[in-house]
């Protein structure tokens, strides 16, 4: 079994802890409790018969990545940069943030994830995602978005981590 450290980072309130909980425990809570410092947990993912242990660090949100203690990133194999699809302020600095992350961990895999897709709904519906609106937001983001997720419904969450695990064993 291989073990890899993965960091969840991004601005505050984008749903990092919700993604963390959804992935680790398969649960979701509407209650917002801000993360202080960092929380660490683990999940083993199986890819084609091979086990990959993902040690996930959920870091307290910061408006800019240069505010996050650098030592939290050290030794990480991947970074999941999360932004809120409904709040442009959470992705307007994404280019600068990516440069900071690339400077700290030049060899790490970086995934850019837009969360809360369950809130981008077609008018007049309460559970149909507006794909056109989602694409429009993705175009507004200065860099390529690897995935859109919903910690609330669990949409694409497992897939996101499976893809990462796949890249770890590749």
């Amino acid at each position: 079994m291989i073990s890899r450290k993965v960091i969840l980072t991004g601005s505050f309130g984008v749903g990092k802890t919700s993604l963390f909980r959804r992935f680790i425990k398969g649960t979701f809570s509407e209650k917002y409790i801000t993360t202080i410092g960092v929380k660490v947990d683990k999940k083993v993912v199986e890819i084609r018969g091979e086990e990959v242990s993902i040690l996930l660090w959920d870091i307290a949100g910061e408006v800019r990545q240069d505010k996050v203690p650098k030592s939290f990133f050290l030794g990480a194999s991947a970074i999941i940069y999360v932004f809120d699809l409904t709040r442009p302020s959470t992705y307007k600095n994404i280019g600068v943030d990516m440069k900071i992350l690339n400077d700290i961990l030049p060899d790490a895999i970086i995934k850019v994830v837009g969360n809360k897709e369950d809130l981008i709904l077609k008018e007049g519906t309460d559970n149909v995602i507006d794909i056109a609106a989602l694409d429009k937001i993705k175009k507004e983001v200065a860099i390529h978005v690897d995935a859109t997720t919903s910690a609330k419904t669990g949409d694409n969450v497992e897939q996101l981590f499976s893809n990462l695990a796949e890249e770890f064993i590749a």
Partner: protein
Amino acid sequence: MVATSHKKQDKELLNQLQSILLKEERVAIERLQETIDDPVILSEKIRPIIEERMLFFKENFPKEFKVTVDKMIEVKLKASQEEILDVIYPVMGKMIKKYVNHQIQMLKDSIDESIKKTFFSRGILWRLKNSLLGITVSDQVIHDLKDYQIEEIYVIQRNSGLLFGSASTENTIDQDVIAGMLTAIKSFVEDAFKREREDLEMIQYGTYKILLQNFYSYYIAIAISGSMSSTEREGLANELLGFAEEELNTLPAEPDQIFEKVSISLREKFIK
């Protein structure tokens, strides 16, 4: 036809002439061939030359190759910085600890001396009994407390917080998560107080302590219950340095093998 016959005769004459003129050379070549083919004769001939060159090499090595060797060492040191530091760390640690320990012992002796002088009239019998047994006042106070026990021990990769190995007296929660959280706390404290090149060395709650012994690319965390005197702590630190030197300098390549090897060694050495 006549021309061909003339050519043949010329060739034979040339051969005869060659045999006469090159007779000595041919004999010399044959001897040389014999020398080359026979390892014993060849060895006899070559040995003095090799020995002479070896001697020359030995005497002139520093002069001829100093720059090249220096360059090679420099490149090797740069390339294997982590491995070298891992080897040097425990040795350096031992030397520094020995010196610090000596200084602390001197300080302790001086405090004992002061206490002896200050409270001469009180507790004379108690001190008399202890001194007969060779126990100092400070040691007696510490020994009155409960003995310590190692509850859990972890070897953790310094930056990532990934676990190299662990051992415990009982089944605790996921040890990977403990290692990760300990690393997160350690990183947080070290970053928050911005003390460069200083490491968090202990976390304490109640009588439970987590001692952290730092090495270059990993650290060892030991959860301890009960009280520990400074001498016992010193002894444990030395044991950890020895353990690092013996067990952690050469680790297997496979992650699973690393975990198994380190965990078994930790259990055998530290968990009673």
